């Protein structure tokens, strides 16, 4: 086969060609496989936690083990699944394709990001094997630096190294989107997924270094006993919280922004219609990225942070909710006078909108000072961020995977089964996490392995929901792997979507485009629809 006909998957199938590839598409696939590994460990930890919480006294595991379980679940999910998932998998694969470039700006740096992620992952996994960490993913001092006797330093080293991986990914995307767009592809002709990746990269690059220095200081304090965060040596633990949350709140926007980009792409394709208010949706991504840096204090309303700082952060936290609201309203308005089909990706995206609205609104509860004093550190918070992370981010990631799977692998998955899986996930999710809102306001604290007997009903519902959720995640894994061999061959543009990535073959050739395309018209310019929702061939 001539080089042009050979796609990126068949161009060299030795292990070396995969491990030393600088092709952004292969690096995306490598990231997909590695985050799957960490997702499975963290999901297993979550399953054990839910089993432990079936019974009020909770005799399944010893308290110390439970503490290690929720730390493993937190650390691996946050840094080794959620943060890399859409940026490093779908972002790596699609951003160069969507902007008509042959590869990212620094391909070797891109491969280095994967190796940094793997090295960090190795240290984190090794810490888990040795006995895990019992500080929670927040590593609050002075417990983590002076009182815990678990493998905190090795886990922190793992996250520190993986953090540099995500800095380099962010740096790569900023430069790629900035300097390597195809001729004619102005900023306002960019697909909204690229806008959200640009905003995410701003956060990746500007927030992760602060995490690096925070973990470094916490590790050094643990090893040499410096007094920066230990009050017995004159330090201030609240300073650690300031530094940690300065990174960790923007980090939650690193997780959700790419999901919003996927939603904009999928909803326009399956409504066959231009998005409503393109500029507002694009700028709200950037607005979230910037305002996201101003609000971290709402994690510390009851932490002896000063009263006036609490007021400032509460006000700013309300403002950061506005751009998200704008996005949701625009997505809903996009469906008006569209021609909607309920393929699997669209089902996930509708699920996303439903769950993200609930997650976002409960965020307002937590931003209200008086209510947060009651619900901080309870299951209300756990439910809120799972609605955003799992209901929002992971659902959007699944939607994105289903949408671009034909482009990535050249195969189609079973249509009906995928639709069923989406619905199962939606039901299982709600059954798992909605009862936790009620538990939270009732006052059940988080991170506890046993609870008051009267809370058992809600915990049992939540565990049953978790079982359905677990099943819901297994189904796509099965039929995706099945589709690799037996799936129907996919056409170049199975969903008849607009966007440069659909103009190449499925899977795309090694160098993406024979000739770099010239872009002349706006994104999502679907032809007008007749009364039955078919495109009029003007």
């Amino acid at each position: 086969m001539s080089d042009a006909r050979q796609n990126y998957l068949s161009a060299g199938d030795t292990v070396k060609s995969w491990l030393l590839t600088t092709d952004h598409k292969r690096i995306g696939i490598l990231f997909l496989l590695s985050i799957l590994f960490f997702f499975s460990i963290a999901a297993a930890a979550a399953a054990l936690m839910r089993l432990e919480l079936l019974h009020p006294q909770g005799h399944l595991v010893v308290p110390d083990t439970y503490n290690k379980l929720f730390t493993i679940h937190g650390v691996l999910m946050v840094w080794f699944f959620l943060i890399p998932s859409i940026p490093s998998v779908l972002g790596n694969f699609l951003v160069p394709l969507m902007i008509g470039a042959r590869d990212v700006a620094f391909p070797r740096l891109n491969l280095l990001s994967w190796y940094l992620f793997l090295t960090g992952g190795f240290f984190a996994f090794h810490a888990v094997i040795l006995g895990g960490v019992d500080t929670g993913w927040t590593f609050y001092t002075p417990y983590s630096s002076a009182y815990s006797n678990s493998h905190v330093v090795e886990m922190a080293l793992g996250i520190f190294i993986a953090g540099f991986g995500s800095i380099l990914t962010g740096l790569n995307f900023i430069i790629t989107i900035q300097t390597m767009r195809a001729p004619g592809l102005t900023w306002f002709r960019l697909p909204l997924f690229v806008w959200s990746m640009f905003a995410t990269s701003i956060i990746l690059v500007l927030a992760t270094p602060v995490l690096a220095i925070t973990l470094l200081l916490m590790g050094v304090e643990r090893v040499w006993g410096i007094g920066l965060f230990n009050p017995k040596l004159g330090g201030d633990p609240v300073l650690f919280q300031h530094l940690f949350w300065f990174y960790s709140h923007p980090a939650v926007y690193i997780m959700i922004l790419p999901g919003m980009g996927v939603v904009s792409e999928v909803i326009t394709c399956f409504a066959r219609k231009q998005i409503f208010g393109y500029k507002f949706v694009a700028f709200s991504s950037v607005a979230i990225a910037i305002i996201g840096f101003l609000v971290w204090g709402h994690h510390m309303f009851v932490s002896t942070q000063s009263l006036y700082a609490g007021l400032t952060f509460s006000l700013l936290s309300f403002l950061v909710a506005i751009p998200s609201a704008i996005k949701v309203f625009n997505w809903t308005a996009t469906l008006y006078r569209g021609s909607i089909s309920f393929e699997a990706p669209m089902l996930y995206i509708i699920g996303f909108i439903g769950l993200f609205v609930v997650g976002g609104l409960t965020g307002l509860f937590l931003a209200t000072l008086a209510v947060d004093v009651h619900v901080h550190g309870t299951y209300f918070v756990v439910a809120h961020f799972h609605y955003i992370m799992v209901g929002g981010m992971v659902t959007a990631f699944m939607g994105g995977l289903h949408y671009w799977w034909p482009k990535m692998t050249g195969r189609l998955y079973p249509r009906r089964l995928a639709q069923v899986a989406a619905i199962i996930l939606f039901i299982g999710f709600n059954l798992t996490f909605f009862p936790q809102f009620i538990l939270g306001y009732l006052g059940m604290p988080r991170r506890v392995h046993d609870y008051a007997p009267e809370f058992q009903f809600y915990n049992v519902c939540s565990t049953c929901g978790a079982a359905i959720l677990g099943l819901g995640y297994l189904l796509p894994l099965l039929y995706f792997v099945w589709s690799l061999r037996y799936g129907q061959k996919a056409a170049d543009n199975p969903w008849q979507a607009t966007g440069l990535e659909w103009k190449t073959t499925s899977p795309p050739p090694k160098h993406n485009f024979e000739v770099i395309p010239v872009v002349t018209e706006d994104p999502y310019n679907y032809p007008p629809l007749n009364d039955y929702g078919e495109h009029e061939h003007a």
Partner: protein
Amino acid sequence: MKAASPSTKSLAITWLVLVVLHFTILGISMLEFGGIGTPVILTLAVVQMILVMLVFMELSRSNKLVRLFAVAGFFWLLIQFTLTAGDYLMRAFH
């Protein structure tokens, strides 16, 4: 890009100004200035930084985009400092 790169003369002059500023800072801190010594020293250090960025790092010769990227980091640092300092200073009033 203006001239290919800065002339040796302008580089040397900048170096001289930096060294002079450096010893001024040292001088200020040695003499009795009461409380206002620190802010003056910090402003002089910021002047030194701006000089290094403009001349040595050729920011004065680069386009608007590079300048934006150069300044962005400090803007975010400013966010972190102001809001955290706000918390520490406000702890006295409640």
